[in-house]
C-alpha cells in the first residue's frame, strides 16, 4: 500500500489554498503508509530564474551562507530559502548543471530533491502531518501539486526512498505499487549512462521516463511505453510544469479515484481523500481505466496526448 493524492487547479482563486488542500488530502491517506511522506508543488515561476530544492541531514552546517558560497562559485546571484532540512535555491535559468557541480564541493551532504522553474519537492521520513508541518506546506500556493505517503516494500525507509521523484526539469512522479523488473531495468539504464542513486524501484520508473523523454518521447509517449516495459503493479501520478497525468498498469489492482469539477481535477488513492474538496458532492467521480493515459494541462495548445483544462 501507499497513498497518493493530486490536485490540478483550473480555478485561479483556489491557488492560494493549494498547499492547505493537498496537506489535508494527504493526511487523510496516512494509514495507507506511515513510513515517509512528500509533496511536489508547482508554486509558479519567475522570469529567467529557475529553482532547485536541496536536502541535507545537517542543514545548519550545509545551508549556512549557501547563497553566498554558491553565488561566488558560479559568479551570479543566488537566493536561498531554508525550510527545515530543505533549501530552495533561485538561480539563473540554464545553470542547474553548474550549480549541481558546485554544490558537491560546497558540502558533501547536500542532495538535490528537484530542479525546475516552478517545481519544489519536499520529502522526509515521518507521518504526512509532521512532514507537511515541518515544511509549512499548508501556507504554500500553486497551480498544481502531488503528494505521497509511503509504505515501503522494495527498499529502505530513507529520505531518498521517499516520493515524489524528480524525473527531469519540472517533472515528478509518485507511485503506488511495486515494480518487479527494476533490477534488470536499472542495469540497462545505467549502461546507457542514466544516473540512478538508490535501490528503490520507483526511482527506476522515474529514470525510465526521463530516459524515454531524453530520447525524444513526449511524457504521454513515455507513459504509454511504460505499460510495455515496466513489469509489476503501478498507479503513477506525474506532474509537469503545466500539467498532471495518471496511468495504471493493465491489472489495475492499486486503487485510484478521480474527481473533476470546473474548479479542479483531483486524484486520490481512495475517495476519502477527496471528501473535503469544494463541490465534491456534484463532481464527476470515476475510476481511471487500466492501461490508459490521462493528462490535463494548463497549456492552451496541449499535445494530442493532453487534454486542455
Amino acid at each position: 500500500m501507499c497513498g497518493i493524492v493530486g490536485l490540478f487547479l483550473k480555478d485561479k482563486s483556489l491557488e492560494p489554498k493549494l498547499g492547505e488542500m493537498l496537506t489535508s488530502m494527504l493526511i487523510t491517506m496516512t494509514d495507507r503508509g506511515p513510513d515517509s511522506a512528500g509533496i511536489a508543488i508547482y508554486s509558479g515561476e519567475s522570469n529567467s530564474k529557475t529553482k532547485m530544492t536541496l536536502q541535507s541531514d545537517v542543514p545548519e552546517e550545509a545551508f549556512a551562507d549557501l547563497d553566498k558560497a554558491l553565488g561566488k562559485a558560479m559568479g551570479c546571484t543566488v537566493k536561498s530559502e531554508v525550510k527545515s532540512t530543505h533549501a530552495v535555491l533561485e538561480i539563473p535559468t540554464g545553470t542547474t548543471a553548474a550549480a549541481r557541480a558546485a554544490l558537491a564541493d560546497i558540502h558533501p551532504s547536500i542532495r538535490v530533491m528537484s530542479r525546475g522553474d516552478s517545481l519544489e519537492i519536499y520529502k522526509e521520513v515521518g507521518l504526512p502531518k509532521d512532514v507537511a508541518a515541518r515544511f509549512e506546506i499548508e501556507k504554500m500556493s500553486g497551480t498544481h501539486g502531488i503528494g505521497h505517503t509511503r509504505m515501503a516494500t522494495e527498499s529502505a525507509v530513507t529520505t531518498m526512498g521517499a516520493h515524489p521523484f524528480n524525473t527531469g526539469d519540472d517533472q515528478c512522479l509518485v507511485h503506488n505499487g511495486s515494480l518487479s523488473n527494476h533490477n534488470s531495468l536499472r542495469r540497462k539504464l545505467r549502461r546507457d549512462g542514466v544516473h540512478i542513486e538508490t535501490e528503490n524501484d520507483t526511482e527506476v520508473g522515474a529514470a525510465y521516463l526521463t530516459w524515454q523523454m531524453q530520447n525524444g518521447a513526449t511524457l504521454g509517449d513515455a507513459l504509454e511505453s511504460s505499460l510495455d516495459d515496466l513489469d509489476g503493479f503501478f498507479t503513477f501520478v506525474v506532474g509537469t510544469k503545466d500539467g498532471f497525468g495518471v496511468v495504471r498498469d493493465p491489472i489495475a489492482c492499486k486503487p485510484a479515484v478521480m474527481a473533476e469539477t470546473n474548479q479542479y481535477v483531483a486524484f486520490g488513492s481512495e475517495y476519502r481523500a477527496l471528501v473535503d474538496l469544494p463541490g465534491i458532492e456534484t463532481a464527476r467521480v470515476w475510476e481511471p481505466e487500466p492501461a490508459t493515459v490521462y493528462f490535463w494541462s494548463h497549456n492552451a495548445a496541449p499535445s494530442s496526448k493532453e487534454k486542455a483544462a
Partner: protein
Amino acid sequence: MQKIDLQDTGLRDLNATLHAQADNTNQTAWEIENPKGAHAIACGLDAPIEVTVRGSTGYYCAGMNQQATVNIKGSAGPGVAENMMSGKVVIDGDASQYAGATGHGGLLVIKGNASSRCGISMKGINIVVHGNIGHMSAFMAQSGNLVVCGDAGDALGDSCYEARLFVRGEVKSLGADCEKKEMRPEHIALLKELLAEAECDAKPEEFTRYGSARNLYNFDVDNAAAY
C-alpha cells in the same frame, strides 16, 4: 427510523450498534449520515434490518452480510458486499473493484458501473449490474448468477466453474475456458426474476449466456499451456 451520524459516532460504535440488533428487533430502519468514504461500514450484519448509507463508502461496505438490506446512496469502494451470505445490497452509483467477491448468497445490485474483478470467486451470490463491468470479472466463479446490462471487459469468466454469466452488451474478451452458451427457457425465467428484483427494465431475451466449457476441470496434458 434510527439515524447515526458517522461524524459523531465512531465506526466501531456504529457497527456494534447494528450487530446488537436481534432477529426480532423492532428497530428495522437505519440511516447512516456522513459516511465520507469510510471503510467497513455496516459490515457483518446478521438481522433483518434495512440500512441506508447517505453518501459514498470506502473499502468493504456491507461485507459478510446476512439477512440485512443495505442501500448505498452513492458509490462504493473496493470489496463491497464481499462474502455476502444472504440479504440484499443496492448501490445507486458505481462500485470499485471486486464487488461481491466470494459471495455465497443474497442479491447485489449495482445501478452504475462495476470496476474490475466483479464477482470474483462468487459462490452462489446473485449480482445485477445496470451498467458495465471491468476486466477479470467472475474469475473462478463457482456458482450464482452475474447479470450485466451493459458491456463486460477483458477475460470474462476466466477459469469459471458453474456460475451463470449473462451479458446484454459486448464482451471485450472471454477468459480461459469460458464460452457462449444457449439461452434456454429456464434462463429466461431466471433472468426475468432477477431483473425485476433489481428494478431493471432490460428484457431477458436481449442477454447472452456465458459459462464454463468445463475443459479445465480435469487435468489434460493438451491443456497444459492454459494452466
